[in-house]
């Protein structure tokens, strides 16, 4: 893989890449991450299971450590016999065969003879006191020789930000979940972009039929809401580019041999368009966008925008998000100033679920344009020369704390995928504590740290079942 070892090389590579993207050229083989002769990391887009198999976990006390080898063997033998009897009883009702029994952990693997039987068996065993749980036999995948996965998206070598935050390390555990809905409250999203369309949230109560199926006053709001035209509508298509770029860093499809990769490949993007063609939007529309996102079940709100006006109404909306356990990730601002002295909202609201994000450059220095704040800015993330999606199936590089925030948002989505019960404030705490201390950020940010997504994900103690 091509690594960027110096700023000079980095800039040269970025220039080359940017030029090629603007010219509509593909990346040359030398920049490709994947060698066609090597196995490539290809996680499934959805969970995959072994057909016609089930794994049963029986209730069983651990075998005490202090027993002798012989006694241990007897216990396990008796236990295996008990499990076999259970399976024999089950075989009177269903076409099952025992494939293997693991008495030490209390698990039995069954082959099920009929396609519809697994669901019936699960329903039956849920009532059985001897059974702790039943689950499919999941496929899992080896990563090459213990290496972290590298996606085959052709621009991977220039996505320095995701590598810096240890995205690949996080991906050894999870690449996200479609159950995690992230609202990009921004200029809209090009939901038809070839590298984003698979990651778009789809309103389950709306059909493309020119009717307001879900009764929320919006016709065909399939992917979000557009608040720009005065009277809101259901088409949040991005005409500006900023929101599409943000969305790509959060959840562009990974390992599809195309374009870029997001931090949380499998999260779902809900588009709220309230920043209009000039990149500006009003507080009132931001509040309406937040209301929409909360009503549709968003768990994380990305706000890569801001201004100096402190609105108590917007703060009230953010507090409502907090009440619902939702995390708000907000860009600290690009004035190169101290937010403790010159606050920028929403990032400067002192609400526990707000995570204010500064931007760093490849060598981990605070970006020259980035705002900071020892009290009010919490964490840094890459925000210089960030390549991501823009409308029209294109890619481009942007700078900004706007680009740093979606790295954090994407990582938050990975944490939520792993542990859905985490509240927004808990996700925030996990991200802050897992960050890498960076000398140049000490005294500038409340944590003094830059996001380390790999550590944040690997540290989680209670992954989702």
């Amino acid at each position: 893989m091509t690594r960027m070892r110096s700023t000079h090389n980095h800039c040269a590579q970025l220039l080359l890449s940017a030029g090629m993207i603007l010219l509509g050229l593909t990346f040359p083989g030398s920049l490709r991450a994947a060698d066609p002769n090597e196995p490539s990391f290809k996680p499934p887009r959805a969970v995959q299971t072994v057909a016609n198999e089930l794994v049963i976990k029986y209730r069983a006390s651990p075998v005490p450590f202090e027993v002798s080898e012989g006694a241990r063997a007897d216990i396990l033998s008796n236990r295996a016999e008990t499990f076999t009897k259970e399976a024999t009883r089950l075989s009177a009702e269903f076409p099952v065969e025992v494939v293997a029994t693991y008495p030490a952990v209390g698990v039995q693997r069954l082959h099920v003879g009929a396609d519809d039987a697994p669901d019936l068996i699960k329903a039956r065993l849920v009532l059985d006191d001897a059974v702790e749980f039943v689950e499919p036999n999941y496929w899992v995948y080896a990563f090459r020789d213990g290496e972290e996965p590298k996606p085959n998206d052709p621009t991977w070598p220039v996505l320095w930000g995701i590598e810096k935050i240890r995205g690949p390390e996080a991906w050894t555990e999870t690449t996200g979940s479609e159950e995690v809905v992230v609202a990009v409250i921004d200029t809209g999203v090009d939901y038809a972009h070839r590298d984003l369309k698979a990651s778009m949230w789809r309103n389950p109560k709306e059909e493309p039929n020119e009717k307001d199926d879900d009764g929320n006053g919006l016709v065909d709001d399939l992917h979000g809401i557009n608040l720009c035209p005065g009277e809101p509508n259901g088409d949040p298509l991005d005409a500006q580019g900023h929101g599409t770029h943000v969305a790509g860093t959060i959840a562009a499809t990974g390992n599809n041999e195309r374009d870029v990769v997001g931090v949380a490949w499998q999260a779902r993007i809900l588009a709220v368009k309230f920043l209009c063609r000039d990149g500006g939007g009003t507080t009132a529309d931001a509040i309406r966008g937040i209301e929409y996102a909360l009503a549709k079940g968003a768990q994380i709100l990305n706000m890569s925008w801001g201004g100096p006006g402190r609105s108590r109404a917007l703060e009230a909306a953010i507090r409502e998000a907090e009440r619902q356990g939702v995390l708000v990730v907000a860009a600290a601002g690009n004035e190169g100033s101290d937010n403790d002295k010159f606050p920028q909202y929403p990032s400067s609201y002192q609400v526990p679920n707000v995570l204010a994000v500064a931007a760093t450059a490849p060598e981990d220095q605070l970006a020259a344009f980035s705002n900071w704040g020892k009290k009010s800015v919490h964490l840094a993330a890459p925000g210089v020369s960030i390549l991501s999606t823009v409308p029209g199936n294109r890619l481009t590089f942007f700078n900004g704390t706007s680009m740093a925030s979606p790295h954090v948002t994407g990582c938050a989505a990975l944490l939520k995928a792993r542990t859905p019960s985490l509240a927004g404030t808990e996700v925030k705490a996990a991200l802050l504590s897992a960050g890498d201390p960076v000398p140049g950020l000490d005294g500038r940010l409340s944590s003094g740290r830059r996001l380390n997504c790999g550590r944040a994900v690997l540290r989680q103690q209670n992954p989702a079942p």
Partner: protein
Amino acid sequence: MKDEPRAVPDELLVTFKPEIPEARKQEIHESVGGEVVNRMLNGRITQVKLKATASRKEAQEAYASFSEVEAVEPNYVSGIQQGGIETPEQKEEDRIR
């Protein structure tokens, strides 16, 4: 000293205290001359449009004089946080793009 925040010139956001009846809110709007454009957060926050001839500052003061009003503020304008220039070299790089 930073510039005054940008805001929509003829609009205000009015946050009422909890439990204020809708009829009373309407009286207050009529008294000040604000036309309700949107209600948000279960009606607690109201976006109002002022008459073309009204002064936003005076309307803000008028709303603030009612004990039922918790907060009144301009409808601020926010903007994207993209486009910062990291180094002079990068500025040149962006120009080339």
